[in-house]
């Protein structure tokens, strides 16, 4: 019956939509400890392309990221206008294949953001393709219903390098580049930590260079993102959004 509510929102809500795709790395390496107290178990394992020391306790990069996404949702829901215009889809990549965690809908009609578990590989190309497919589907739904929308956003976050199918990766880079060059997509490629492969990230984004997240400051990044989305939803479609770049140094290493 939730589908009915979503259909009703699609046609009854007059607000122009801001579709945002979050493409998030949840490969095994996101289990790396980035804070908190830990106890060494004395074991070590090879996972996701590297040797890791196994510890107990602590806060992982994944924990920080999930908390950041939750605050992103919370901030947007607090803004009356943004909560009617922002629509978020979340695709994760870990294990062996990407997963659609949240599909586009009015924020208040989506379920709570779930807990994520990190494991496996980094099928980044596959994930970006899945996110773009969801985006195309949503755009078609907007067109069919007669709903205005802003240029969609794609946030791509990884702490490593893609190790999925090469052809999928190439296809994904081609698709995002074409959309970005036609100004039909704004891409924000974000590297997490020092291992993130910014060179590959750059291939997705011909118009905006990748940024590296400073000190695992997911909170800072998502705060900036929600403010930017809020500003977009209060102007009207077609308007060129001026991103508040003065705030970027708070979370990025330029």
């Amino acid at each position, binding site marked *: *019956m*939730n*589908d*009915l*509510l979503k259909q*009703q929102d*699609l*046609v*009854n*809500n*007059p*607000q*122009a939509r801001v579709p945002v795709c979050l493409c998030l790395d949840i490969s095994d390496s996101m289990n790396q400890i980035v804070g908190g107290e830990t106890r060494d178990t004395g074991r070590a394992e090879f996972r996701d392309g590297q040797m890791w020391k196994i510890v107990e306790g602590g806060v992982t990069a994944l924990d920080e990221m999930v908390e950041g996404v939750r605050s992103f949702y919370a901030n947007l829901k607090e803004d*009356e*206008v943004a909560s*009617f215009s922002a629509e978020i889809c979340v695709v994760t990549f870990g294990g062996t294949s990407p997963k659609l965690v949240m599909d586009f809908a009015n924020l*208040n*009609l*989506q*379920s*709570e953001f*779930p807990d994520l578990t990190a494991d496996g590989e980094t099928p980044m190309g596959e994930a970006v393709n899945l996110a773009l497919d969801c985006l195309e589907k949503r755009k078609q739904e907007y*067109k*069919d*219903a*007669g*709903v*205005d929308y802003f240029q969609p956003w794609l946030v791509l976050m990884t702490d490593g390098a893609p190790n999925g199918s090469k052809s999928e990766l190439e296809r994904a880079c081609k698709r995002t580049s074409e959309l970005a060059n036609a100004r039909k997509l704004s891409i924000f490629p974000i590297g997490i930590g020092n291992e993130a492969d910014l060179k590959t990230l750059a291939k997705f984004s011909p118009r905006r260079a990748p940024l590296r997240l400073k000190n695992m400051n997911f909170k800072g990044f998502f705060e900036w993102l929600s403010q930017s989305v809020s500003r977009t939803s*209060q*102007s*009207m*479609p*077609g*308007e060129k959004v001026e991103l508040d770049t003065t705030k970027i140094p708070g979370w990025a290493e330029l």
Partner: protein
Amino acid sequence: MLDQETIQNNFLENCIKNYKIIVDTCSLITEGVDKFWLRIVPMLSREGKSIILPYSVYLELNKLAAKNDLEAIRARDNLIRLQRAKLIEVYADPNDGDFADNVILRVLTQKRLQYNILLITQDRGLASEALKIGKDNAAVQRIKSILVQKINKDGFLEIFFDNKDRKPAEPPPDIPAEEKFNLATQVVNIEGKLPVSHVPTQDEFVVAVKNGNTTQIKLLEEIGAGGEGSVYKTDIDGVVAKIYKSERLTRLRYEKLRLMLSKRIDCDGVCFPLAMLYNQRNLEFVGYLMKSAAGKELGRSIFLPPLLKKHFPHWQKADTVQLCVTILKKLKYLHDRNIILGDINPYNILVVSPTEIYFVDTDSYQVEGFICPVGMPTFTPPELQNKPIGLRSFGNESFAIATLLFMIMLPGKPPYAMQGGESLSANIIKGDFSYPLGEKKTGKAPMGPWRYCWSHLPYKIKETFYETFRYDGSHHAEQNRYSTAEWLRQFEYYLDLLNSGKMLAQDAESLQLFPKRFKKQKDINYVKCRLCGREVEEYRTEQGICKECLNDGEHHKCARCGEEMIYTNYQKYIKHSRPYELCQKCSETVFEQRVCPSCGSIFSITFGEKLYFDNNGLVLPRRCKNCRGKSF
């Protein structure tokens, strides 16, 4: 079109259901009164309603009857019969005098907040007094309305002040030179910043200067902050101060404000600059003084249906139409003085009530060669799309006004949103307006309630929008667009149609902000939905419930993931099923995997299945589906 008889009957029925009806002496002895009773009495008995008769009206009839006035005698005897049948209710107040007019006006004043009232009288004077009371009401929060009608010789009710009586469009008023700006043909360009040693904040003093008079003013608490600066309360009641950030204190801004202050601009609700503000230390320019505003931004109330319902729960169509009239009057005031707003948008108009609104951010208005440097694409006409901002014309502005009015009539929906559309800007340039006018249609109007909202607009209003927005429309080109005065005339006419009961007579659904169907048509059967009570097409109902109500219902959350769900009236009343506790996704999610002891295969039990077993007091099955029920 519906015939006169059907229209009148619809109107009477709607009035009987929704209004208290009061009748005046003179109407009881008028020529068509018998036909009127013949029409209304069966309706009254059917609905179990009655008409209110002030006791003093009865006394007046009695007096006339005593003078052997035959009409009065017949009327009085009629009333006595009607009272026995409980179809009239005599209203008496011990404090009432004998003069019926006064009694009626007092009843109107006392009851107007509680009830919609229909006054039937033949007396023009009483009618106009009664309508005045109705208009006072609008100043509070319009919830109930007062209708005034007379009985014509055919026994039909009709309005007093018909459009025929309306004055033609007024000639442009003569505005004295001290209120009027010139029209410029060239953009004023002044470079450079002004030096400022200190930008004052809360609890500091500033110096206000107007026409050479200076006053010290204290800044109190900050009530808002934005990209340009902050707004503070001041120690003058109802007056606030805008103080710019130091980097925004340019010579251009200073000269523009000086020009704005050189004319006498005084319009209720327009927060125009009142005086220049300087810091106390060096008397450097820091901002300006203006009247304070109140209310909710259009974009955060009227333009988002759930917020519209939250902030203005009792509003009907007449309220949004009145809101348009109020906005247009202020726009006309400014245009008459050659002030062009430039950046008309839903975030710089604040709404308190349909008759109380505030225009803010007035320092961006275009005056003479000082342009308005901002704008939003939705409100930007095709000829200016994707172009740098320069001087705007009245024609440019008219497009923005038409868009704003459209988005108040179809709450929040931009005029060019359409099925199969391109980007918003491309759609505006293309001018492929998708809403129909008579036979002219593209079939691409958006899904949802928007077509219904459009359908219920009066033809004249639709035509005005259509001719403005459609690329081949007669008023689409910049120089041909309708003036603010013309829009005002149109919306005053619309308001008349609503307030006079004419729209009600045609179709009660036209009074709703969100009608549930298209305007009534001749060859379609309408029935009352048993849930919402509104008249809908019979073929769109199931067991007496309309489609909208069937899809509506109680909202609740999935017991597992918290996703919002709806228990629809269709499930409740048609299928008689219980609400789902889990959303479909959770219902299909695996709760547990087990190994079947009979065949050794692994099988899953979903959360949906678990719920079923739990609810029926059953233990979870040990065997897989194939092996269940088989004997081993």
